[in-house]
């Protein structure tokens, strides 16, 4: 079922934690999700016209990756009226300082703010969530696991289960939905997305949690190639990757 431009399926909880292994594309997903929600919020689209949220924030809790972090896209996000929270050294994107400012709590406490939390790449990176745990056990939160079946660690059902279990153990929060983001960067084909969907279906069955959506890089894969997929489709913008990385 193809529902591009119809984002009702994203209108669930106020706070969305996005987790996923390195290379799953969770940061790309988080940024794209925020951008899509920002467009909908500002254009007062009918799908979200009744949204109780007046503000949108992206919290970058990825303190384990030194490069390719969502706060690097601060300007793009803030131009779309998305508030970015993260390291207390806000303008110092290159600093090797895993320190978070107290302001990170602001959007979590603001009942009118829709929040996306970009969590670090493994169970060690996810540990940071513990200090904010009280904000995520109030029924207003969900934790999405972004899966890329082309990553060796999450290429099998057991690999995914092991990874999700480690994240859940580290955070004490259960994964509520799966996001299929199977990609090979610029070499992504529809087959990759179908392959990932198969894997996610098996994981979904074992854990008894739904697949939220299948992501696709809209500049590379045409959505019409994916119409057979039963779940929602979410176009990703590839905001983080410089063009020269893939042209040469």
């Amino acid at each position, binding site marked *: 079922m193809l529902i591009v431009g119809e984002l009702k399926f994203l209108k669930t909880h106020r706070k969305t934690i996005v987790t996923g292994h*390195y*290379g799953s594309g969770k940061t790309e997903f988080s940024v794209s999700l925020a951008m899509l929600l920002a467009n909908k919020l500002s254009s007062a689209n009918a799908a979200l016209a009744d949204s109780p949220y007046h503000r949108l924030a992206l919290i970058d809790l990825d303190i384990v*990756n*030194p*490069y*390719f972090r969502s706060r690097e896209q601060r300007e793009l996000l803030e131009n779309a009226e998305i508030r970015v929270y993260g390291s207390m050294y806000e303008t110092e994107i*290159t600093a*090797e300082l895993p320190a978070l400012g107290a302001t990170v709590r602001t959007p979590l406490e603001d009942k009118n703010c829709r929040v996306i939390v970009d969590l670090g790449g493994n169970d060690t990176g996810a540990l940071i969530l513990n200090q904010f745990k009280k904000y995520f056990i109030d029924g207003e939160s969900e934790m999405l696991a972004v899966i*890329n079946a*082309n*990553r*060796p660690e999450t*290429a099998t059902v057991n690999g995914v289960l092991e990874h999700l279990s480690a994240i859940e153990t580290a955070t004490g929060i259960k994964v509520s939905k799966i996001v299929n983001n199977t*990609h*090979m*960067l610029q*070499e992504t084909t529809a087959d990759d997305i179908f392959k990932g969907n198969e894997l996610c279906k098996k994981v979904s069955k074992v854990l008894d949690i739904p697949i939220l959506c299948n992501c696709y890089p809209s500049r590379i894969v045409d959505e019409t190639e994916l119409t057979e997929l039963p779940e929602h489709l979410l176009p990703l913008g590839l905001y983080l990757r*410089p*063009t*020269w*990385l893939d*042209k*040469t």
Partner: protein
Amino acid sequence: MSGKVLMKGNEAFSEAAIRGGCRYYFGYPITPQNEIPEYMSRELPKHDGHFIQAESEIGAIMMAYGAGAAGGRVFITSSSPGIALFQEGISLMCSAQVPTVILTVSRCGPGIGGIQPGQADYFQATRGGGNGDYRVPVFAPSSVQEGVDMVYQAMELSDKLRNPVMIFTDGLLGQMMEPVVMPDFVPVPKSDEIRKGKPWALTGYGKDDSKRNTVTSLRIVPDVLEKYVHGLFEKYEQAEKELCRVETFDIEDADMVIVAFGTVARITKEAISMLKEQGIKVGLIRPISLWPFPYDVFNKISPKTKVVISAELSMGQMIQDVELGIAKRFPVRLINRTGGTIPTSLEIAERAKKIYEEIGG
């Protein structure tokens, strides 16, 4: 893991080392290469390999010296300030002719500097900071796949040369994700088979072997040392002939030639296509081996070329080798960034065009 997979550079280099026969890794954490010790600590034991987190980089390279002397295949990695601490051991291993593969995931300096990518360790890699006369072959990939292939092949090369071999990457290559195809696992000799391939190794007295080996860096008699160093340099001379690698395009018919390696070469390729759209013919020289440096390729540059540019993430280090290759035949200019900022392809194109116009092109 078969077929194409998506891997982070640091993980892919680690897996390539294991597949190339590495069973010993000694390391100490430093950004932006920390995924390597993490990966090796997790994966090496699955292949009956050994991981030790050393007390420092100096400890790590000395462990590599010991394990290499005993005939093991060793992989050690670090980033710029850590590679600085390796230098004593690199000199020792070159002197004692002990193989190891060293990978640097270079960041910016000097000193502790920052954690973003840099190429200001060009001198450190190609000239070295250890004492005495020695050489280390250095190869610089510009993609994760190329880095994988280099690490894998360096395992064999290092054994063959009985010398450390260095792979020079930068933080961006270490941290970026790219599709890669992994090579097959090479067979690893059992401990009682090591002497077949490495008759010099310290493997103890075997059942059928009464010869006692010595691996040493100490030669106290001047004549003995002089003869020994000459022997080393016969080996390096041969290596210079055999190991030189370079990628070029369009240098025989270029208005301008840009020389760049690693990440910068990749950005430069996009810059060159931008310049071509503006009617400027630009050739590229990408040194793949930094030592030996491909000086000879500079003889192929067209006489009508107006200027040769060295593009680097440093204040200008490779440019000295470029000038040696050019031998005053063309003006040489520098396009550089330092401190961890990577130039965009547009920035390189604009700066190259400005230089070209200033030179009268």
